[in-house]
């Protein structure tokens, strides 16, 4: 079987052009869906009978929390592909993803804090979900710091890949141990939303926002990937021609 079509994706010139072409196809739908989702969430959806209008931060909070984990998974898969098959472009994808993921984690934590203040009466509780999200932020920061402190690009790529894989093996352990810790220590002083059966009017904007955030990540990834390729291939002759054209 002929695999050249597949190998083309790993070549920087092809990926550079493809990413440039794909970026608007991610970006515009993301923009439109965010507008639609925010309108649905902030205007159309009814106020919650317990939380009033405060619950509306959900439409930013939950998609961010989803993205923080989705991006970590994407990044680790890319890192593993780069490590196993020595595909430099996969490392570039991982490098471009990490700061976006860290930022989404940070957004999820801050929106959670803002939400927690009126609902639970405090900015922060040592709840299991909050704590594992915080540890996820530490893992992201560690990855970014490791990459930043290694000058040699090849070594930085592969070392970050090993760390990303170690992190992904550890994430479930961290997640469940934190749950176990919390259930023993706190009991039910704070009942989470506890999966209330959410009405359709509240649900569709949430799903729209989740899809929109995922598309947004796709668009930003394409732009960041192009920047990453520019940085890595700055001495390559194809790039000189591409930029001159």
């Amino acid at each position: 079987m002929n695999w050249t079509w597949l190998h083309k994706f790993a070549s920087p010139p092809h990926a550079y052009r493809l990413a440039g072409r794909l970026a608007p196809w991610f970006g515009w739908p993301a923009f439109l869906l965010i507008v639609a989702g925010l309108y649905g969430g902030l205007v159309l959806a009814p106020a919650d009978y317990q939380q009033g209008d405060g619950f509306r931060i959900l439409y930013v909070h939950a998609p961010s929390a989803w993205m923080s984990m989705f991006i970590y998974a994407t990044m680790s898969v890319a890192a593993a592909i780069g490590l196993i098959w020595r595909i430099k472009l996969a490392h570039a994808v991982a490098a471009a993803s990490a700061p976006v993921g860290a930022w989404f984690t940070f957004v999820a934590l801050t929106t959670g804090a803002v939400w927690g203040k009126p609902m639970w009466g405090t900015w922060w509780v040592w709840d299991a979900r909050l704590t594992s999200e915080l540890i996820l932020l530490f893992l992201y920061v560690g990855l970014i710091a490791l990459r930043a402190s290694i000058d040699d690009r090849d070594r930085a790529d592969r070392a970050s890949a090993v760390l990303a894989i170690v992190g992904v093996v550890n994430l479930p352990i961290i997640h469940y141990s934190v749950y176990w810790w919390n259930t023993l220590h706190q009991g039910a002083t704070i009942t989470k939303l506890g999966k209330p059966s959410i009405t359709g009017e509240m649900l569709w904007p949430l799903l729209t926002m989740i899809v929109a955030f995922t598309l947004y990540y796709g668009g930003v990834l394409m732009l960041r990937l192009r920047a990453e390729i520019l940085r890595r291939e700055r001495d390559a002759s194809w790039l000189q021609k591409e930029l001159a054209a």
Partner: protein
Amino acid sequence: MERTSPAAAAMLMYRRDLLLAFRHWDQVAQPVVFFAMVTTLFPLALSPELGELRQLAGGVLWVAALLAALLGLEFLFRADHADGTLEQMLLSGQPLALLAVAKGAAHWTVCGLPLVLVSPLFAISLGVPTGALCTVMLSLALGTGILSALGAIGAALTLGLRRGSMLLSLLVLPLAMPALIFGARAIDMAIEGEAARGPLLLLAAMLVLVLTLAPLAVGSALRISAE
């Protein structure tokens, strides 16, 4: 020429590392002194009341032990990297993962084991009842083992980097948090007179898991760092 078997090579590596470590007694003593200092800080900062300290003892002992064991990790591969021994290890044809296990075991013997041995002394000073001392030692023995294995990954990745020690703690501490949770909990349960079997078994399971997987990660990280 006869070829050294992998097991023999690992044993040689272990004995060599111990010999080198005990040539520098100050380095062996440092983690213990650090552990003593940190556990002393807590009563000064919180309260001299034994009843209050007892409730915090599990956490205090574990945090102090984590930080003390972290101190020595930075030096795990550094000297070998600096004088070229690491390259010889890579070229020797011996399985790198096994050599990493030997080095990790030597590190634990020098850094972790002394902490475990002195821990009852500090546990008593924090008001831990004598019945719980066994659990204290066991949970710290398992926990420092986990930290040595996880820390070896971090040490291999940050080998030869500027400000590697800060980075090392940033990489290793989040990964060690599950061990901290179960370890401190085991001590708490023992202090309250409950059977601490559950968290101890979970700690042991974690140790088995990291002992299985970490050497592979250390091996590939060493290859990446030494190139």
